[in-house]
């Protein structure tokens, strides 16, 4: 081991050069980094949100609401399929199923067949499969239910659509681009670096933005509203400002948000108030024209996510296919609404499951605290090693430690692994424990020397025999890091990642770097005794 093989020297030199090269950008100010020639790496450590400030948001798609909506639609499909063909009663949802009772027992089979033919879309990926099951039950009843795969598929589709829509909303809102990713079956993760006030982001994401135009039922009196008496076919909708009180509107919507082609923030020509201007597509324009012509003098409500924004009186038939929403808007809220309308409505409401926000100020504090403790910890370790083993052997372990640090930071910069605050703690601990390998080697050398071996034989044995122990000891660290990595949560993942990289570089630097340095010392000075014996 003590004869210096060429490949070992080359390996160490290459590692040091690469480590230094990839670490370098972290030490340069941003202005100098930009001026570096193209072949020099310019990537710095990728700081986690807890260090650079930012927001982590985890949303889940409200699959229950999604399914509720699908069941409601399915009920309507069932109704229209059987209407005029089969007499039935008692159609409604029972739990996750739809149930109905066919009046004439002879028609049950016909009804089942008709339903099987028409309702439910084909199941994706299964030839001849259907999203729904239709079964006859006792007492002339028919039960219709979604198969579990259909639930999963529509949740997955809703997640994908939601991500697409969120991306469109954020793109056109001009906020700094966040990372949006799907997680698991029904979740969406949004990470916005540098965004320490996520409220605007949350406002953009958290709104379903389902827009409908519904006629106001002026026949219902305020007393009816107060008593909760709602005429059939109507529903009560609160106003968005919370002051005006509730409206009774027709359940059936005249026009929906899907029929909008373009929305834009503008100003009302008379009042100068911020408004949202919009344009309908062909179908929307036609319907809106018809309805306004027939209902002159009546009011229609503009409803967003079950809240009435405004309820203007129809002055004249609006046939141009464009219109204006005025409410209590600020310029920003009008702009946000137009962004939401353009991007489309979310297929299902999203719910915040987890939010972690760190201000840039706190992040900078954390970086400072982490750097200070890293430097103090490292210097203390170095002084300690020199105090214990003297300049030569202590010095060798310091060089190994420095190479180790270079390699860890270099690899983390190269792979853009995320460095978090706990990750810094992991780094400090890794470096402190890295000298363990040196200690094992040195102590082994001393043992062998005491056992009566020659100097060169002892040094050889020190390396070869300590190797097994070093491997065993480090693999245990690697195992615990691997398990930690699977715990989830960004900061802890960062910790695990740092530990894992540290273990690999430690084995390399403590063993190989130490070996090369000591072999070189031995070759040049031909010592008779070991300074640590």
């Amino acid at each position, binding site marked *: 081991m003590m004869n210096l093989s060429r490949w070992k020297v080359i390996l160490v030199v290459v590692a040091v050069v690469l480590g230094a090269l990839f670490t370098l950008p972290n030490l340069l100010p941003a202005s100098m980094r930009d001026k570096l020639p193209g072949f020099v790496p310019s990537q710095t450590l990728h700081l986690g949100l807890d260090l650079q400030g930012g927001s982590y948001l985890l949303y889940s798609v409200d699959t229950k609401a999604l399914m509720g909506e699908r069941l409601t639609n399915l009920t309507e499909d069932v109704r229209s399929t059987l209407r005029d063909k089969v007499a039935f009663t008692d159609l409604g949802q029972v739990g996750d199923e739809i149930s109905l009772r066919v009046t004439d027992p002879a028609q049950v089979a016909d009804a089942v067949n008709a339903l099987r033919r028409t309702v439910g879309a084909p199941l994706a990926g299964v030839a001849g499969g259907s999203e729904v099951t239709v079964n006859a039950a006792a007492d002339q009843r028919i039960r219709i239910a979604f198969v579990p795969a259909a639930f999963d598929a529509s949740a997955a589709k809703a997640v994908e659509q939601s991500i697409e829509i969120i991306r469109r909303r954020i793109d056109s809102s001009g906020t700094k681009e966040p990372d949006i990713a799907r997680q698991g079956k029904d979740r969406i993760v949004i990470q916005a670096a540098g965004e320490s006030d996520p409220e605007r982001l949350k406002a953009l994401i*958290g709104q379903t933005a389902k827009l409908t135009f519904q006629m106001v039922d002026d026949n219902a009196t305020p007393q009816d509203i107060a008593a909760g008496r709602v005429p059939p076919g109507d529903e009560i909708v609160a106003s968005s400002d919370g002051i005006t009180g509730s409206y009774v509107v027709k359940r059936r919507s005249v026009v929906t948000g899907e029929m909008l082609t373009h929305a834009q923030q503008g100003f009302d020509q008379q009042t100068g108030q911020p408004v949202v201007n919009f344009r309908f597509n062909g179908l929307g324009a036609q319907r809106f024209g018809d309805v306004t012509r027939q209902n002159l003098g009546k009011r229609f409500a503009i409803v967003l996510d079950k809240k009435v924004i405004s309820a203007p009186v129809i002055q004249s038939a609006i046939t141009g296919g464009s219109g204006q929403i005025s409410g209590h808007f600020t310029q920003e809220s009008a702009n946000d609404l137009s962004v939401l309308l353009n991007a489309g409505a979310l297929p299902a409401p999203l719910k*915040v499951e987890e939010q*972690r926000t760190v*201000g840039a100020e706190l992040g900078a504090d954390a970086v400072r605290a982490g750097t200070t*403790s890293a430097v103090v910890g490292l210097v203390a370790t170095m002084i300690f090693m020199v105090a214990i083993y003297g300049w030569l052997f202590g010095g060798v372990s310091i060089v190994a430690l420095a190479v180790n640090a270079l390699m860890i930071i270099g690899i983390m910069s190269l792979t853009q692994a995320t460095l978090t605050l*706990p990750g810094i703690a992991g780094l400090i601990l890794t470096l402190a424990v890295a000298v363990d390998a040196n200690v094992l080697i040195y102590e082994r050398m001393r043992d062998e020397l*005491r056992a009566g071996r020659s100097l060169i034989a002892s040094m050889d044995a020190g390396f070869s025999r300590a190797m097994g122990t070093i491997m065993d*000891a480090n693999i*245990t660290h690697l195992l615990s890091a691997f398990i930690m990595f699977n715990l989830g949560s960004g900061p802890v993942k960062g910790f695990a990642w740092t530990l894992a990289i540290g273990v690999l570089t430690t084995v390399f630097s403590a063993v190989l770097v130490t070996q090369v340095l000591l072999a070189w010392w031995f070759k040049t000075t031909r010592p008779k005794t070991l300074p640590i014996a």
Partner: protein
Amino acid sequence: MSFWPLIKVLPVRTHFRFVRLAKFAAALSIVAVIGSLALTLYPFKPPCGGLACGIDFQGGSVMEITTAPKSVDLAKARAALTGLGIGDIQVVAFGAPSSAMVKFQTPAGADASATVKTVQAALTQSLGEVRFAKTELVGPKVSNELLTKGVLGLGLAILAMLLYIWFRFELQFGLGAVAALFHDVFLTFGLIAVCHIEFNLNAVAAILTIIGYSMNDTVVVFDRFRENLRKYKRMPLAEVIDMSINEMLTRTIITSMTAVLALIALAAFGGPSLWGLSIIMLFGIGIGTYSSIYIAAPVIMLWGVKRADEEAQPLTPAGAKS
């Protein structure tokens, strides 16, 4: 004679009779483990028993607020928040006097995100200019998952270590190592309970690190132990264990010292969010070193080990020999 380098001054070979104290140490450890378990579990408050549960595992919200350069008027903040009807809101000092931590549970049925907004508005209204340095919100679904993952992670880590040691050494070694691990993990939980350190994901990460470190220490002692077992085939087991521990003692002390130095630096300069993590790890390093010597090795003696030229022979542990 010079005192530097220190390695020359340290005793070359110690002859401590560690095994002799094993019975006493075992009794002490059993009492400590039982005490720690009791503190960890009592008063059985779900989900964290006797530990100060962080929102990672309990759900809820926590905010770090700062009114720098003014100091935070905690009483005023509390008064503003009690009226909100959110139940138990904790407002405590955190680090510098200009900072405070606000922690609360989302009331049943309320929207977590909206509750956070309400609290922020109330704080801004009563304290004037407040900056929200950190806001965390964990919903019930996520906190349940994190807790399951955390407990599972700890269990898996211990199992992985057992399998690894079994594979590299012998089953008896693995059992000794795992006994030491359980010892370390339980005592660490005891520390977390006694010191009211928040039990969160960081704490679990710290415990996992301790598991890694404690194993590292145990493996080093085991390695030497196995080597000496082969070298001294007729020497009684207790003596081989003593000899192996003594031979590795210098290394054990030096390595623990470097880790302790680094962790003290971390605790002193790492700021309040790393304080808990570093204290847990500091304690764990000490316990891990102790358990390698007094738990892992003696447990092997209870089962005995296969030695090259004779059958496994369980020996009476501890000083019984002399």
